[in-house]
């Protein structure tokens, strides 16, 4: 009870501190715009002290006082850290002369942002956590950072030209076969679009499980699952969940690209970019590194937006705060992405894609986005928003009925090697009787008969439910009917590139038809969703002839070997 009271109190102080210009003062180029008389501070301090005397003991009061005394410096360092500028934060810290524990903690934090986890861990180890308790936020952050640092310090590092990839030795190493190339490609493309050149190497971390990812992202498992936040740009680095711990995997190249856009924007805008802008731009550009003409929305977002327009039910930018990941439902999160991506699309359509860079770099120098937009577009944000709505209505966004609404992701405790056939949820089961009968037959390897039962559940003109489809594919595979397999998948799977299972089925079917190129293409596509599915590599090997592609075959063999490795876990963070 007492602690929560104190935390609230500290929060007040922090809010007060930031509001009174501490945030402003953190901007290096501009002196803080002081809105209040400086003499008011000691008075309020006295008042606080008087009020606190009655409720806090001596030690707590001292800590609180220390925090209060240095709230400005702390605010400054924090702001720099949020703007992903550890070097500047180091300088600010040197000048701040914070109490020892705060100093150590921030030093550790800075090393953490710099990717020097050993050092970070060392500093965190010296911090007396009790001293940080006066501020709930700092104390929590300390917990999260120290735990991630402890885990990450044992991670292996793989350096590319522009990236420093951190991963846990074990199956995650498989990602190294694909990730560096993609990252470099993304880097090249975005360097062009955003005129961004890195300072230090960009750190990319592959989190081996959701617990560690939770620490890094400060999101709960539920939040991650509801909103599908499986990667983040945080603490001066890109963090992604390993696809092997996400059911069905995910299209990680776009996801990491998305986070990289955030990274660039935060750096460009010194963390001044509003959330809608951040997410909108990231969403808009996430696929453009590879496919410049890619639809910025995609079927899912388009559907969501079409529905929102239809119902005239838009989310305000305030409602989207503080994070899309904190939105209560997956539908709302989807709509938020759709809206913001469309807004950015509107920006780019009305001006050009360059305007994004302009806005981003203007933001640190202007008060807010309003003034930036006013300068660049000649309208305020509200007008811009209205204009966008009018524009959006003319875009004829349509509802894609075949698309299932986004249902979040499912995090796994164990590695998912392949997608199993799960129980069918009731709502989606149209012909339960036939499905059950099909299952009975399938269990007894009566594939032909099972397939006929499953076919009875198919409603003309509707896509086949995924679980039924999987069952049918299994039957077809055993019946050796690759043509039918390809046809079935093509007819029923919409976002094929995000569906490793289907891609593997396709790959296998093509292989059976001796269409090796097509097979290889599908299988490689599958690695972009779930590179941990050994079947992909086994099939892939079959697409190569052992003599001609000796190196490739060896590479795949090594990959398979890696996949069988157990993750090397840090003892302290054993989950």
């Amino acid at each position, binding site marked *: 009870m007492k602690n929560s009271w104190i935390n609230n109190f500290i929060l007040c102080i922090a809010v007060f501190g930031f509001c009174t210009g501490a945030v402003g003062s953190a901007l290096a180029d501009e002196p803080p715009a002081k809105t209040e008389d400086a003499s008011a501070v000691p008075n309020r301090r006295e008042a606080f002290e008087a009020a606190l005397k009655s409720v806090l003991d001596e030690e707590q009061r001292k800590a609180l006082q220390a925090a209060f005394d240095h709230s400005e410096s702390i605010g400054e360092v924090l702001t720099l850290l949020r703007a992903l500028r550890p070097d500047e934060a180091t300088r600010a810290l040197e000048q701040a002369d914070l109490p020892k524990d705060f100093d150590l903690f921030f030093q550790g934090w800075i090393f953490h942002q710099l990717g020097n986890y050993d050092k970070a861990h060392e500093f965190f180890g010296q911090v007396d956590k009790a001293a940080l308790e006066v501020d709930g936020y700092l104390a929590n952050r300390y917990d999260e950072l120290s735990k991630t640092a402890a885990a990450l310090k044992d991670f292996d590092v793989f350096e590319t030209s522009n990236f420093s990839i951190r991963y846990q030795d074990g199956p995650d190493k498989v990602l190294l076969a694909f990730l560096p190339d993609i990252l470099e490609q993304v880097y090249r493309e975005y360097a062009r679009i955003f005129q961004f050149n890195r300072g230090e190497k960009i750190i990319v971390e592959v989190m081996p499980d959701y617990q560690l990812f939770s620490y890094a992202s400060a999101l709960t498992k539920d939040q991650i699952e509801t909103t599908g936040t499986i990667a983040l740009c945080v603490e001066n680095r890109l963090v992604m969940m390993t696809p092997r711990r996400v059911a069905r995997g995910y299209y990680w190249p776009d996801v990491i690209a998305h986070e990289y856009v955030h990274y660039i924007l935060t750096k460009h805008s010194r963390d001044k970019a509003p959330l809608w802008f951040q997410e909108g731009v990231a969403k808009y550009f996430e696929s453009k590194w590879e496919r410049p003409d890619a639809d910025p929305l995609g079927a899912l977002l388009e559907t969501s937006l079409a529905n929102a327009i239809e119902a005239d039910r838009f989310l305000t930018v305030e409602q989207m705060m503080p994070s899309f990941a904190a939105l209560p439902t997956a539908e709302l999160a989807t709509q938020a992405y759709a809206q913001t991506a469309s807004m950015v699309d509107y920006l780019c359509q009305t001006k050009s894609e360059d305007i994004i860079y302009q806005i981003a770099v203007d933001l640190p120098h202007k008060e807010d986005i309003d003034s930036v937009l006013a300068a660049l577009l000649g309208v305020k944000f509200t007008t811009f928003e209205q204009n966008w709505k009018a524009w959006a209505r003319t875009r004829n966004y349509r509802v894609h009925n075949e698309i299932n609404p986004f249902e979040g992701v499912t995090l796994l405790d164990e590695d998912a090697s392949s997608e199993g056939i799960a129980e069918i949820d009731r709502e989606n089961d149209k012909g339960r009787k036939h499905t059950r*009968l099909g299952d009975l037959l399938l269990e007894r390897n009566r594939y032909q008969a099972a397939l006929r039962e499953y076919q009875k559940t198919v409603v003309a003109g509707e896509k086949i439910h995924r679980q039924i489809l999987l069952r049918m594919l299994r039957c077809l595979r055993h019946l050796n009917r690759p043509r039918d397999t390809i046809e079935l998948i093509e007819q029923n799977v919409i976002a094929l590139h995000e569906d490793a299972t289907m891609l593997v089925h396709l790959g296998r079917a093509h292989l059976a038809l001796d269409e090796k190129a097509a097979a290889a293409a599908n299988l490689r596509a599958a690695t972009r969703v779930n590179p941990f599915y050994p079947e992909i590599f086994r099939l892939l090997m079959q697409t190569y002839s052992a003599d001609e592609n000796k190196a490739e075959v060896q590479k795949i063999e090594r990959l398979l070997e890696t996949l069988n490795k157990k993750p090397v876990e840090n003892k302290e963070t054993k989950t």
Partner: protein
Amino acid sequence: MHQLHQSLSRYGRRLMLARVWRTTLQWLASVGAYYALYFLTALTVKSFSINWPGLLYVPIALTVVFAAVGLYRLWQLRNRREVARRLEALHPAMALRIRSALDFLEGKSDESDGQMQQAYTNDVAADVDQLPHGEPARRPWAAYGGAAVLVNTLLIVLFSGALIDKFYNPSISFGQTHLDLSEGSITIFEPEYTQIPGRTLPLKPGSFSAYPGSRVRFMIDLPEGARRLFLEKDGEKPTELPMTETNQVAHEFVLVQDTALKFLVDDAQNGGQTQPYQLKVKQDHIPEVVLRSHTPEGLLNVLDPLIAEVEIKDDFGVKMLEAVVTWEGGEKRIPISVPLERKNHFIARNQWYLSDLDLDKTPSFSIYFEARDNNPINGPGIGRSRELTYELESPERKYDEFMEIARRLLDTMTHTLGDNLDTNLPPRPEEVALREAKILGQSIQQGLYRGSELTNLLITKVRETPNITRLDQNFLYKYRNNISKASRMRAEMDPFYNHYSAFERLEQNHRLEETRLEGLTYELLLQLKIWAVLELERQNNELEQNLDQLQQLLDNSENMDQQELMKMFEKLMNDVLKEFQEMMEKAAQQMDMSMEEFMNMDAANFQQDQMQELKKKIMEALKAGDMDKAKRLMEQMRQQMQGAMNSMQQAMGEMSPEMREMMQQMREFMGLLRELKTQQEKLEGDTQALRRDMDGKMGGNQAQPSQQQQAEHKKIMENIHKKISELYNRLVDFNTEDLLQELDTQRVDLERQLEQGGIPERREHAIRQEMRVLHQTTKFIEQNGLDRLQNATLRSLEQTEKMQEYLDQGELMLSLETGLKLDSFLSRGENVAHRSVPEGMKDDPKARETFSESRNELMEILDSLRGLRNQMERKRRNFMQQSGEQGQEQLAQRQADLQEMIQKFQEQAQESLEGSPLFQKLGDIERAMRSAQGKLNNSQLEGAVQYEQDTLQKIGELMEQLQQAQQPTPNSPMPMMGGMPMQRERMQGDPLIKDFYIPDSQKKASRDEMKDAIRKQLQKNLPDAYGKEIRKYYEKLMDQ
């Protein structure tokens, strides 16, 4: 006084003393001599006895004599002169001198010389002084006396025993050994238990026999001159029997063992003894208890009743008959009533369910019958039957076996469906395709045969499988029929493969078959899931009950010893934990998963550890005597366990949404039934009330049959009763064990004939035919066919008697109702007889004919009663129409509402329960309701009540089946409380079978009895005031 005088006086005193002493010694010597002689005679002469006269008379006489002699001797010394004379006689030297001296002194002498006289006198005086004192003893009487005393003392000391014996048991010598006591009689009263009347016989020696406990009375008129009569029994010392004044002697005794006695008459002239009278004890036989038939020994299913028929014989009657059930660590005696009129020979037919036996958890038990006869004298004689030993089948194992077969059936059906679906019929007939299709068709046919076989197997297993209800049995019957239909259809398709012209029909049938097989497979799958759900529910209930018991144990712990409590608690707790573990494993198995997959293993282990920890804490609290803490911890544990169970159910539910839904539906189903029951009961009551009301307003509505009809009915009923009784007797006469043995002998005989060979073909055929019949008969008996027939007969008999009673009392509607029940029993009996009585036995019990004839006769009464009922109904309806009564319509509406409830539930649960027998049963209920509604709309109250009751009965049945399905297996909760009849307690809590207390009385009536009685009363048209009172009483009764 002169010196002489003095001397003489002195001398005289001394003499007197000496004489007294001597006389005394003489007396002593003579008495002593007498006694010595007497004793010696008594000791030496056998027949000489010591008696009071001998002991006293002679010594007293001697004493008197000696006293007289003594006195005489003293008289002799009466004066001095006599003393002087005695002295002179003693001493001749003094002859006359003393008397002379005395004369001188007394002046009687002539001598006048005084001096001389003086001198003489002095001389004499001096001489007298010098005379020796006393008289010289001629014999040593002191020695004689002493010797006599010594001899007697010695005799008494040495032979005291013999002498006392001689005194107390005087020996009489009875010379004559064939004394005839002709005047008198012997009467023997046999004991009461024998119920033999008493008998009187002439008093002639000889042999007699009687049952132990008989009273034997001798009346003897003694002959003239007889003084005493002695009785000698079994060679012992004769005892004298008291005699009346009329010289009569009566002697009576209770005969408990063989006895020989004779009488001895003491008579002056005609003394002697009679020849012995031999009284022999007849043997009372112990009861003979023979098992006539019984459930075969060995494995016994817990759901099957234990049937045993015993025949009991006893010479005088059985007082008590008990069935004694023994098992390891326990015994229970079940009293069986003995028919009042037939105590000597009767047959007791018993049927118990295992729950009646209250066995502890035991794998086996034995039972025997023990009869005690009514002999209170040297009994009771105890007779025992052979001991029957049964092993209880493990219900779980049975259930698992059942489920295994069910799974195999599902497997078979799935493959059969697969065969059908795999059949590829081209658009046009092609030879190759048809050939392949034909092969698959054969496989389908085989699959259907196999499915049918497995279903049959399941049907036979249903009887012995606990938890599987009649509903399931119905399902299986229906399932088998459907498979048979499919099989027939498949057989019909066979020729189509060879004719191109029939190709279209083949295709058509093939599609039809596909649908049918799909239905069959899916139906079975659902049923399997229902079973799994019920199993889980049941286990859940069981665990709940066990936890209840633990709680109860703690609640009732005040009166228990701490050690005992702890021991018991620990045992129960271990059981609970073990059961819990097993339950989890079983649930995992149901889901076809390993335990690790089913539950998060760490969580499960953690839970287990926590429970163990809690158990430890509770034990500690118990040890410390802190009951409150123990209860608190127990509550905590209970919650934890329930939590675990919930999560387990959830886990199951999550894995299968169907199962979760089904479980939910089942619960709702039970709720619906309860609600329906309550409402329907109320509706029935209201309909009855309306009917009463109408009848009351009409001023009575009781149709009466004519007298002639009544007489006819009576005659018919008596006839039916007679027929069925006779049938029963015929059936009882079959002793199955003997019969089986006989059949076996016949079979062996026939087999031998066949083996020997060399018989003509026709004869061989006949023998084989005979053997088949024998086989059928054996099978019939082994499958309890006789039992079933007997049951049907008994029930029919019961209903017949009931109906007779109702008819006698003029209760026509109740008669009709009972008549319909009787009809159904008769028809059931007829069916059983028709189906199961083999050819070989047909002529013997004639069961089918009897049932059929009885039914035909009964029909006559039923028709007549129906006519009367319709008459009443018409009358009432007309009255209602005339008086504009609306009540029935409201009732009809209520009935319609109930139907709507059912329909709603049906819609709601359609997906998960459709096709299950539960649903069909619900349909039956709805149909009965609809009929009731129709009757109500048509103002036919009588019919409405009947259908309402029918509905109630159907609801009750369904509820019972559901409850049964959800109840723990009958014998598994028992281990919990060491023989506490938990099952029974639970049963008593069941409103369906609860006993009803009649207010203000001690009697308890069963629900059925009570219902009948109340209905009977309510249907009577009673006078107003009295009627109200009666109604109030019954309303009070109904309120309970």
